[in-house]
Structure formats: C-alpha cells, structure tokens
C-alpha cells in the first residue's frame, strides 16, 4: 500500500515539475510545444480512463464515448461566453464541473437507450449515437456552430486564485488538478458496490441478476458516470483550445479513446493512463517527424491486440509473480536477446513505410528523406534492399528469440501455476 502511494506521489511530482524542465531561461518562457503536449496528455488521460469505466470495468464496448467529451467541450464554450458576458459569475476552476454535468445529462439520455442492450447490440446503438451526434453537430448551428465550430475566450477574469489563464502553464496546472481529481473520483468508484457490480456484470451478467441486481441499471449508472468524467475532459479541452469543432465529438476521437485504453491495458485501473501518455507522445512527437505516424499507431494497436491483449499494463503486471519469486533477473538476458532482432524488424518496417511515403506523399509535398544529414534517394535500390533485408532477417530471427523467451518464461512461471 505504501509503495503505491509513493508511486502516485512520484507521478504527481513529475507532472508538476516537468514543464519547468523545458523552461527557456534565456527568454524567460515555457516551451509552448511541451505545454500543449502535456495539456493534451491530461485531456486524453481523462478521456481514456472514463472510457475504461465502460470497456475494462463494465465490459461495455462503446463507440460513442467522444460524444460526451465533445458535448462537455461545446457546453463549456457557451459557459465561458456567458461568463465573459458577466451572466455566469462562476470561477474558472469549478467550470469544468458544469461541463461534466452536461456530459452526464447527455449520457443519461443516450445511456437510457443504449444500456437496454449489452454486447454487440450495445455497440451498434452507440455507433448510431455517435453518427447521430456528428450529424447534429453539423445541423444545429446555434449550439454547435456548424463546420467552423464555436469559439470562446478563456480570460474571463473569474478565478478563486486570481489567475487569468492567459498563459498555457496556468491552463496546464488547471488541467493537471482536474485530471488528478477525476482520476481519484474514477478510482473511488471502482471501490464502491456499483463499481464492483460493474465488474460482476461484465464477467457474468446473468449471475448478477440472480443476486438481486438488475444488470441494466448497473450498465446505465456506469455509463452515465463515465459520461460525467468525459464531459469534464471536454470542458478542459474547450479551455485549452478556446475552440470546439466537430472533431471533439466525432468518431475518430471515440476510436482514439478505445485505442488508448486498449494499448495501455483495460485490466488495470491505471492502464489507460499509460496508453493516453504513449499515444499523445506519438501524436505530438512522431507526427512532427513522419507523415505516416498513424500507420505506426495502427500497427502498434494490431500488434497489441494479437500479442498482448492485456495491454502494456497487463504485460507489466504479468511480471509480478516472477518478481515476487525473485526471478526477474533471469529474464534480463532473454529480453536483451530480443532487442537486436526487434530493432531490426522495427527499423526495416519503418524504413519501408517511410520510403513509400516519400515516394508518394513526400514527393507531392516536395520533401526529401534525410537520415543523419544524408539525403536518401528513394528511387535507388539500396535503401529498399536494406529495409526489406532488415525486416525479413529481423522477423525470422525474432521468431527464434521469441520462442526462446517463451520457454524461459514458461519455466519461470510453471511451478507457480501448479500451486494455483
């Protein structure tokens, strides 16, 4: 228990301190890129965690989660505008709660419809809701502003702490505070009767029924509460960007929520945090370097689904029994042996994707592929041969090493399984 609190304290400390690690002392300003990336991470952490209240905790495969994030965003724009007019005298710090309540309200309406069903039928209904909202966003201009979205100004000069939120760093700390609050709230829910019965109905809804619980009510409450938290995330999104468009509630963002939760791992509470951080890093970092960053996210997702359905956090947790047995060291060499073929495989694949990308899109944009200061001719045979070679050799070699790794892993966990 105490180590857990240490971990949490460490994570919070890092989150508080990290903007200052990139502080530009010469010009007395923060790195705009870092601040916006970190802010985005906070938003995505809330989105992914609230999505996992459905997918991981209740076994509900929702395809409309961005709806509640988006409605929180749109509502927030209108709240901020009202505050700007002086008709909503509320401090900025509590406004995200209003956005959350907007998300809750809509989730109650749609949840009432969707949670009548479970499994595939539930997924279908949520898909319909997502499309419905996307259409509504383009049709009802008064609220959604059509294609251009709605804009606002976050400097409403209403604050508990006398802040004006002109600078990104202030907004970042507001996001951080709300992310921590929302995370704590969502974690608390997992410790309550509702949270536990959500797990129970996920595992076996029929049994829950014969214990006095109406699985539909469990699904409905869980769905509504997840809408509350998604709405808070959307509200913070509106504060950050001061504009909310169609993108904030359309299905690509719902898919992103799924991606982050799944890659991070749905079986551990903190898993989606890991996924949100990783995907945001890829989105912000790799998208600067490569046109094809979405290809990498997609391939990562497919690889996770096939090889590690428990996600990153699940992979980490699988080491726990080995660590308890004091045998973690015996995995060092097998892991190191995976590195070289693994790198070859990845580099070969990235090489091929980039070559293809520069051959087509890059050429159209007039870009040239530059590696270590050398321009690479994408029409020459050599880079293609090297990439294909690395891909094939790395792949074949990795299969052998993976088999070896698997044997070591089995031998380390075998006696444990016999005990169980």
């Amino acid at each position, binding site marked *: 228990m105490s180590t857990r609190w240490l971990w949490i304290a460490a994570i919070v400390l890092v989150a508080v301190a990290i903007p200052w690690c990139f502080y530009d002392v010469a010009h007395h300003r923060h790195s705009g890129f870092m601040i916006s990336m970190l802010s985005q991470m906070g938003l995505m952490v809330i989105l992914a965690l609230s999505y996992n209240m459905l997918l991981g905790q209740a076994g509900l495969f929702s395809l409309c989660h961005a709806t509640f994030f988006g409605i929180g965003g749109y509502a927030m724009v209108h709240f901020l505008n009202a505050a700007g007019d002086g008709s909503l005298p509320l401090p900025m710090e509590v406004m995200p709660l209003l956005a959350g309540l907007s998300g809750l309200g809509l989730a109650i309406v749609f949840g009432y419809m969707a949670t009548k069903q479970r499994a595939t039928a539930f997924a279908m209904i949520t898909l319909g809701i997502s499309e419905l909202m996307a259409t509504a966003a383009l049709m009802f201009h008064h609220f959604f502003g059509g294609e251009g979205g709605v804009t606002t100004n976050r400097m409403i000069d209403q604050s508990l702490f006398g802040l004006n939120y002109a600078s990104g760093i202030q907004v970042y700390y507001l996001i951080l505070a709300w992310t921590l609050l929302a995370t704590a709230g969502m974690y*608390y*829910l997992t*410790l*309550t*009767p*509702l*949270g*536990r*019965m959500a*797990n*129970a109905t*996920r*595992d*076996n809804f*029929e*049994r*829950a*029924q*014969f*214990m*006095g*619980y*109406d699985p539909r*009510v*469990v699904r409905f*409450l869980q769905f509504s*509460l997840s809408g509350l938290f998604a709405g808070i995330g959307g509200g913070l999104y509106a504060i950050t960007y001061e504009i909310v468009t169609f993108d904030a509630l359309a299905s690509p963002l719902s898919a992103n929520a799924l991606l982050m939760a799944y890659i991070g791992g749905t079986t551990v509470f903190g898993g989606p945090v890991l996924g949100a951080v990783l995907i945001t890093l890829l989105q912000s970092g790799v998208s600067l370097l490569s046109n094809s960053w979405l290809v990498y996210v997609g391939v990562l997702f497919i690889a996770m689904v096939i090889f590690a359905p428990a996600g990153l956090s699940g992979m980490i947790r699988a080491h726990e029994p080995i660590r308890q047995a004091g045998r973690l060291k015996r995995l060092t060499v097998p892991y190191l042996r995976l590195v070289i073929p693994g790198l070859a495989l990845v580099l070969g694949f990235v090489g091929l994707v980039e070559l293809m990308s520069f051959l087509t899109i890059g050429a159209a944009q007039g870009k040239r592929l530059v590696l270590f200061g050398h321009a690479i001719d994408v029409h020459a045979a050599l880079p293609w041969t090297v990439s294909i070679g690395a891909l094939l050799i790395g792949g074949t070699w990795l299969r052998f090493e993976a088999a070896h790794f698997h044997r070591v892993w089995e031998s380390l966990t075998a006696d444990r399984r016999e005990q*169980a």
Partner: protein
Amino acid sequence: MTAAVSLRDVHKSFGATQIIRGVNLEIAPGERHCIIGPNGAGKTTLFNLISGRFPITSGEIALNGARIDQLPPHRINRLGLSRSFQITSIFHRLSVFENLRCALLWSRGYRYSFWSPLWRQKALNEHADFLLHDLNLATRRDIPAGLLSYAEQRALEIGMTIAGGASVILLDEPTAGMSNTETDHAMALIRRVTQGKTLLMVEHDMKVVFDLADTITVLVYGQVIVSGPPAEVRANRAVQEAYLGALEG
C-alpha cells in the same frame, strides 16, 4: 399454511415444442424437495421458469403466496428466492472473496451505491470472510475464482446462492461431475447451509436424493408423474417403469 413455492398448471413451449406440460407443485416452507427424472424431462427448464430466467407460456407461479411468474429474475431474487446453475456460474475474473461479497451486497441494502467504499463496510467484509471459511475456501481468498478447481467452484457457487439469505434455494445438479468423496463433502455443505430454508434441488445421484429429500417429485416429459415422500416414490410402479426400474433391476 402458504406454500413456499407453488406452481399451478404451468406450461412452457419453445416454438411448437412443449417442454413443460401442466405442472402442479406445492413446496412447503422448510421442505427439502428433490426433482428427478430422465434427461430431457424439463427439470432445468422448470428451474428456469421458477427463477424467472424464462417467461412461462401459461399458468401461475407463486413465492410465499405472491405471484412471481411475470417478474424478472432480480425481482424474484429480492423476494427471497435464489438459485445455482448446472453449469458453474461465477464471476471468473473477480477474487473468491469478491464473488461472495457481491452475492451479499443486495440483501444487505447496498443497492447501486456509488458512494460507500467497500473496504469500510466492516460487517459486510466479515460476513464474506465468514462464508469463505464456512465453504472451506479461506486459503483461496484472493485468487481469481476462474482458477479454482471444479469442486471448489461448485462450492463457491453454492455459497453465492445462499449468501443473500434467501429463504427458498434452488440447486441445479450441485454434485454433477463430482467424485464420490467430493459429492459427500458437497452434500454435507448443502445440508449445513440450507438449514431451516426451503430447498428445491434437481439431482441425478439417487443415493443423494433418497438421503436428503423429504419429498421427491418425478418429472417425465414435462409432467409430474408422482410427488411424495421417498418411500412412496420408491414403491410407485409408474416411477419404477419410467425411471427407477433400470436402476434397481
């Protein structure tokens, strides 16, 4: 006295196929009642009708005098009827302790609470731990229920069925697939935990049935051919022909 469970002319059809064809049954409070019959006689279907898993086609089912045949399973459970399943039905990914605690929640009034933290509910947790010991599963407390052995899962299933304190317990073949020793253990457990409750049980093991039951009902092709004390059922010619004959001959 009002019957704990009463069925009046209950019919059930799946499409054109009649599975239950006019069953009448009265089960007195505190009675240990076993239902036997050949495969396909409709024993499990009858359980599914009583517990509300399937709607009945026609007839009436009452629990302690109140109609329940139009109610969903969770409402029937809240009125004091609990059941187990022939195929083990537990929460595989939750720990053994959590399984039992979940089974206690509704009857202890927690409903859908999302404000009371479970770790602070001392009486609830103590009760779950008490059941854990009672079921001989204390050493398995924190492992996922899906990793228990078959017999342990069956014991957990029985524990979850009785946890909520229901007065009427339906057990669907609780000893199916068990060895003789395991069956003896399971029966001792069932006797102990259903003390003072009304027990309705489907069972194939005749030794178990004649040992335990106050009343035996024989169901053949969706109809009751006889219902009475074990001695009477054993002596019944129709039963011997239809069912027991092969066993004793």
